[in-house]
């Protein structure tokens, strides 16, 4: 069979992630220290796991409502109000999805017509572009700058808008940069969007992980509220990556169309995960604070450590990544990561994997133990010292 001929043009045009080769080396290397994985190192808090187990014991194993259990949607509505001052009607404005990723996919597929452009600030998580392409739209990558702490500025946005622009993705707090958008940044964005019909897809999966200031959603601004679709979930806030629990909320007319697609593609999110999520919403605020506190300590230590050994990095104020600038080493991001792994057995992720703007940077995840962070810093120091020596000899 000539499969290439049979597969859709769209899927064949989606480039495979370049990171796979790096991960293949890693899998062989059993004793590597990893600042590479992008998920909490905590196990889901026990009371949440217990609620999932209890639902199985009771035999709650059937489908739920397509949009998710009403009880869960009520809890999500109350959580969003309590923690982010966001008001959504549980019955018509919230759909429970299989992780935040499904929510992103639903939104892009429900909004993009062929030729519609989706502005995607980069470096950012890798899924937006391929999913926008698969939905028939055209991703337009917009490079954010380190000197702006990787925020999106009004000027940058203006320069990317065309008559075909349908959607702006706002991936903040940002993986991999740790950058955030504050209220005044969003107000500037609102001014640019005023009078247009451009919608916002706000990926707020790291909303609970901000340090020193509270997360502000574009939906918190009255002038952006009606054009914003929020994607959020339990993976990062409650250390629940494997439960695959997310949700979307936004204007009723859009959410109801997303529900239609979710109903055909997914039916309903896993039932036991939904029961666990109810417990997370009801009694999990303390877990969030505890984990955030822990991440915050590691964040400060890693930032200070990287600066001490000579890698400049701006202070990340969200998510759990530090994004140091490695341009001073003279290596490309890919080379830096591969050589660092081979010579010192430490994994960090090449910034180039996160889109064009990421070249010259590497992503270090601090959702790992202090011991590993400390050891990784020592080895990074070694690596840089050896590299400078080699370069001096050659130069």
């Amino acid at each position, binding site marked *: 069979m000539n499969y290439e001929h049979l597969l859709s043009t769209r899927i064949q045009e989606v480039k495979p992630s370049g990171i796979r080769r790096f991960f293949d080396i890693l899998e062989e290397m059993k004793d590597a220290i990893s600042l590479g994985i992008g998920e909490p190192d905590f196990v889901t808090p026990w009371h949440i796991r217990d609620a999932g187990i209890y639902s199985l014991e009771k035999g709650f194993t059937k489908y739920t409502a397509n949009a998710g259990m009403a009880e869960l949607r009520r809890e999500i509505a109350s959580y969003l109000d309590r923690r982010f001052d966001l008001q959504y009607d549980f019955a018509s404005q919230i759909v429970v999805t299989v992780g935040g990723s499904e929510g992103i996919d639903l939104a892009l597929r429900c909004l993009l017509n062929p030729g519609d452009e989706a502005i995607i600030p980069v470096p950012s998580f890798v899924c937006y572009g391929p999913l926008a392409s698969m939905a028939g739209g055209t991703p337009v990558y917009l490079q954010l700058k380190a000197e702006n702490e990787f925020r999106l500025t009004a000027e940058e946005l203006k320069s990317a808008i065309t008559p075909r622009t349908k959607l702006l993705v706002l991936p903040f707090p940002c993986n991999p940069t740790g950058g955030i958008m504050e209220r005044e940044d969003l107000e500037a964005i609102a001014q640019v969007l005023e009078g247009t019909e451009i919608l916002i897809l706000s990926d707020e999966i790291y909303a609970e992980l901000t340090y020193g200031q509270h997360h502000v959603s574009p939906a918190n601004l009255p002038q952006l509220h009606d054009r914003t679709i929020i994607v959020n979930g339990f993976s990062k806030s409650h250390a629940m990556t494997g439960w695959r629990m997310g949700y979307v909320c936004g204007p009723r007319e859009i959410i109801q169309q997303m529900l239609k697609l979710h109903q055909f593609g997914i039916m309903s999110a896993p039932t036991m995960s939904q029961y666990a999520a109810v417990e997370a919403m009801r009694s999990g605020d303390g877990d969030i604070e505890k984990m955030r506190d822990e991440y*915050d300590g590691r964040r*400060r230590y890693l930032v200070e450590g990287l600066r001490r050994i000579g890698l400049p990095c701006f202070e990340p104020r969200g998510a759990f990544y530090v994004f140091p600038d490695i341009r001073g080493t003279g290596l490309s991001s890919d080379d830096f990561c591969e050589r660092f792994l081979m010579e010192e057995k430490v994994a960090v992720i090449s910034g180039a994997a996160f889109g064009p703007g990421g070249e010259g940077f590497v992503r270090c995840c601090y959702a790992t133990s202090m011991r590993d962070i400390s050891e990784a810093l020592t080895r990074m120091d070694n690596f840089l010292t050896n590299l400078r020596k080699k370069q001096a000899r050659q130069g």
Partner: protein
Amino acid sequence: MSKLLQLLEEDCTLTPEQLASMAGMSVEEVKAQIKKYEDDKVILGYKAIVDWDRTEREAVTALIEVRVTPQRGDGFDRVAERIYQYDEVESVYLMSGAYDLTVIISGRTLKEVAQFVGERLSTLEDVTGTATHFILHKYKEKHLIFEKQEQQAKEWIFS
């Protein structure tokens, strides 16, 4: 300042440099503060939690309920002091409820513990009764779990 205590209570092997970054203090401030905590007896000491069952060494731990007659003026303090002076005694707590003191002691053998209770503890003049419970197995202590936890296999997912 309680941030520093909280960090040390969780892991006292953190270096002053690590503690400084994590608590948002300077290294000098951390060192000075720790010294003050030690001087003020806010920090009593630093110890490793050992699972002796994984070693060759035999160890027996017992929890003893002790009833005592409180003394005029000193209440329970004097008798508690007479008990905690023994090296074998790990912990002594004053309790509410059916008995007065909880004494935790460890020895190398059952006989050693029995001897301590019979000869030293119950013969104290203010002690009116004891009940000894031997600890058969430790599951968790100071938030640390004794059993080796099975870990989920690591998968390299790009997220």
